[in-house]
């Protein structure tokens, strides 16, 4: 309340009387001062002395009433006892609501003033209520926007994409400058920063501690928390303080009883977030938590299935002298489940080989398990020496007995003798194999295709075809993921494959890459893609293909083999030394990195070309950087002694590729 009286004693006295009301009291000794005060703040009531030098009480009241802002503030005039009726009337005209006569009785004054103080508060309350209604409407609108956080489309996003979407949308909802999400690691349950929005420097994997620091404490709350002002005590992650975050809104992500993590929003200004925002955030966090949980469990299962499936694919393709093999496998991209495609290559007796491609109907763990059973069953029948058709028939019987009508798969098997080129092909409902001649002419092998496995019950015979694979030609087996595109017929896809195979590069790996690039490219497929290529090559003297145990004893063996090859070619002593060194160092490296369960062998391929020798040493690990000062010497030496060195990291291991130019020497030794 505002007290206006030129008599300071009087002001003091009134102040004492009104003090028990507990309101803030401001004093002014003149009308002008009162007006100045009124410019700055609002008052519940003004006590105004009528008789003042300068601007009188009436004049002051007049001014107060003429101002929009202060018009509704009640004015109580203070006057001496010589007021008469007319004077009182004039007072009301001037905007007074009441009079207090001097000398005043404290009780009377107090009760009159308190009436207006209460009125003021009620008005304020009603204003707030009106504001609340408007805000409630805004909230409804916002809740609808909140729905967007958990709408159906988001349910199919992979986790990282989902987090990015969530953060962007949440930040927009609350007009925040930055947002972020910490997720509790599934193994250690420590909260780890997984994604941010609006932060320049993102340190993925930054770890918070549950219960420590602001975000750590929010993790243990049950609702959203607002931090109005970020100060030292907030113990924020340094990247947040560096980004200039001054206020925070954070909510725990909880599903059932599990705490998944924390979702937070940051603003550059203080007190950006209100308690209504906090309520909204709690709601939003609930939805976000469900979506994240969903995406995470899909992710988990997907990884599991992919692991299972990959473990059933052959680790290495056999390296035979007269046969070259290459394979590509790409699990389906967009769908959360992995399909049941596989390929296999099995060495048979007397240098023959069987190659397989298959596709189990269905997805996920079930399909992968069936795939494993079929693969193992087929291997057993083929290794026993059965022809392709017989093996297929037996496999079908096996499958039917295990799964009855509940399983279906397409499959193609080819057994091949690389020395003669005779092959035997059996196809159970699978796409035709493609035969590419040495000159590039490609045609699909048309023949009697049997029923898919698991369909139509156990059969007595399965059709098989005998064919010849000429020297230099390539047989391609593949699954429908390679050739099926939404909107195109399968014939279009097959034709595209045929074209890509005939136009592709001459080396086998290059051909596979070319085919994948042409048919799949960057578009995520809805299905797995598997491609297996087998090429029959003439026996060459200028070639070594060795698979050796990963032990130091293999190093001299590798060296002797390479030396023999080079001596045959008539290479000079220095060239021989260089290659001896290269293969020994590379082999030693492969052996020293044999840690894993599949690392018990490594492979050496050496081929004499017109211009020099191409040497490849492949291990099934990843090329680890040389440790310690001594280790790097090997690579340095290799580089000094040969012309080209390259480390090629592949899916199944690392190859050190070396090339050294050779003068065409005088071949010695056995006749060509």
């Amino acid at each position: 309340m505002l007290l206006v009286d030129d008599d300071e004693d009087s002001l003091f006295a009134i102040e004492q009387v009104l003090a028990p009301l507990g309101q803030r009291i401001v004093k002014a000794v003149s009308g002008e001062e009162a007006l100045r005060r009124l410019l700055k703040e609002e008052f519940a009531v003004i006590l105004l002395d009528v008789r003042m030098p300068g601007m009188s009480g009436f004049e002051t009241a007049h001014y107060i009433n003429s101002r929009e802002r202060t018009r509704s503030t009640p004015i109580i005039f203070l006057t001496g006892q010589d007021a008469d009726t007319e004077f009182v009337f004039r007072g009301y005209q001037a905007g007074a609501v009441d009079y207090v006569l001097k000398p005043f009785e404290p009780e009377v004054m107090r009760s009159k003033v308190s009436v207006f103080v209460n009125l003021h508060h009620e008005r304020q309350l009603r204003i707030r209520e009106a504001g609340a209604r408007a805000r409630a409407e805004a909230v409804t609108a916002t809740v609808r926007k909140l729905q967007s956080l958990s709408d159906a489309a988001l349910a199919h996003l992979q986790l990282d994409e989902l987090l990015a979407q969530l953060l962007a949308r949440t930040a927009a909802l609350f007009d925040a400058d930055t947002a972020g999400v910490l997720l509790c690691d599934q193994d250690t349950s420590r909260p780890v920063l997984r994604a941010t929005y609006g932060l320049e420097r993102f340190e993925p994997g930054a770890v918070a501690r549950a219960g420590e620091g602001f975000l750590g404490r929010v993790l243990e709350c049950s609702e959203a928390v607002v931090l109005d002002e970020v100060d030292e005590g907030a113990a924020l992650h340094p990247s947040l303080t560096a980004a200039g975050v001054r206020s925070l809104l954070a909510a725990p992500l909880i599903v059932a009883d599990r705490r998944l993590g924390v979702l937070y929003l940051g603003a550059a200004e203080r007190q950006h977030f209100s308690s209504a925002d906090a309520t909204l955030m709690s709601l939003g966090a609930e939805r976000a938590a469900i979506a994240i949980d969903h995406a995470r469990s899909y992710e988990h299962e997907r990884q599991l299935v992919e692991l299972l499936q990959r473990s059933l694919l052959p680790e290495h393709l056999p390296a035979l002298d007269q046969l070259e093999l290459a394979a590509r496998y790409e699990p389906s991209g967009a769908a959360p489940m992995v399909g049941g495609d596989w390929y296999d290559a099995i060495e048979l007796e007397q240098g023959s080989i069987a190659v397989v491609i298959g596709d189990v109907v269905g997805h996920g763990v079930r399909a992968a398990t069936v795939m494993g059973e079929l693969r193992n069953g087929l291997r057993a029948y083929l290794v026993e020496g059965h022809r392709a058709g017989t093996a297929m028939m037996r496999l079908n019987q096996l499958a039917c007995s295990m799964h009855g009508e509940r399983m279906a798969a397409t499959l193609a098997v080819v057994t091949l003798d690389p020395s003669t080129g005779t092959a035997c092909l059996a196809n159970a409902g699978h796409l035709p194999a493609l035969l590419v001649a040495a000159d590039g002419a490609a045609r699909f092998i048309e023949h009697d295709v049997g029923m898919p496995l698991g369909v139509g019950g156990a059969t007595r015979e399965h059709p098989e075809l005998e064919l010849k694979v000429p020297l230099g030609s390539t047989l391609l087996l593949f699954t429908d993921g390679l050739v099926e595109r939404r909107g195109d017929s399968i014939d279009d896809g097959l034709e595209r494959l045929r074209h890509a195979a005939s136009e592709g590069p001459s080396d086998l790996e290059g051909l596979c890459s070319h085919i994948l690039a042409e048919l799949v490219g960057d578009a995520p497929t809805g299905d797995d893609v598997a491609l297996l290529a087998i090429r029959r090559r003439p026996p060459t003297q200028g070639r070594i293909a060795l698979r050796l145990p990963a032990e130091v004893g293999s190093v001299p063996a590798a060296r002797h083999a390479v030396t023999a090859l080079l001596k045959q070619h008539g290479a000079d002593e220095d060239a021989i030394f260089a290659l001896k060194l290269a293969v020994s160092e590379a082999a030693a490296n492969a052996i020293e990195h044999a840690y894993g369960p599949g690392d018990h062998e490594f492979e050496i391929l050496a081929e004499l070309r017109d211009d020099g020798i191409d040497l490849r040493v492949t291990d099934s690990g990843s090329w680890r950087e040389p440790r310690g000062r001594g280790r790097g010497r090997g690579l340095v030496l290799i580089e000094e002694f040969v012309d080209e060195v390259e480390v090629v990291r592949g899916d199944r291991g690392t190859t050190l590729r070396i090339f050294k130019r050779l003068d065409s020497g005088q071949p010695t030794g056995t006749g060509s």
Partner: protein
Amino acid sequence: MAERASTPLTAGGASAGSPGDAELARITLECDPEADVRVVAVEGEIDISNVVRLRDAILALPNAALGLVLDLQATAYIDSSAIRLLYELRDRLSRRGQVLCVLDREGSNVRRVLELTGFCGRDEERPGSAQDAAATIRRRLRHDVEL
């Protein structure tokens, strides 16, 4: 009178009957009591499969000598495994105040490996024989002592 002992170094780690069993290298250990220098001559190939045996043979020598001469003139092949051993030997010996001297053939691939890996300098003075090397060692140690 010089003592001699000769040991074959087969490939370590090879399983019985595998190609690695063939003798890869033969080392000859000589001790010149007058010169008090040990000479180890290696004939053949040293790689990761037999370098450990070479190391064991050398370290088994009594270490009262002034130094060690490693004669690689008849060594057909060495690679980073041998170099690693050479660095180790040089360190060990120098800690005991002993000298390591390596003998190689001019223009050989073995010399090339020694130089490329920094073990020997290109312009370094090279003794021409085991006697030369022994004399070099004595000279070097006397020089050190005189300082």
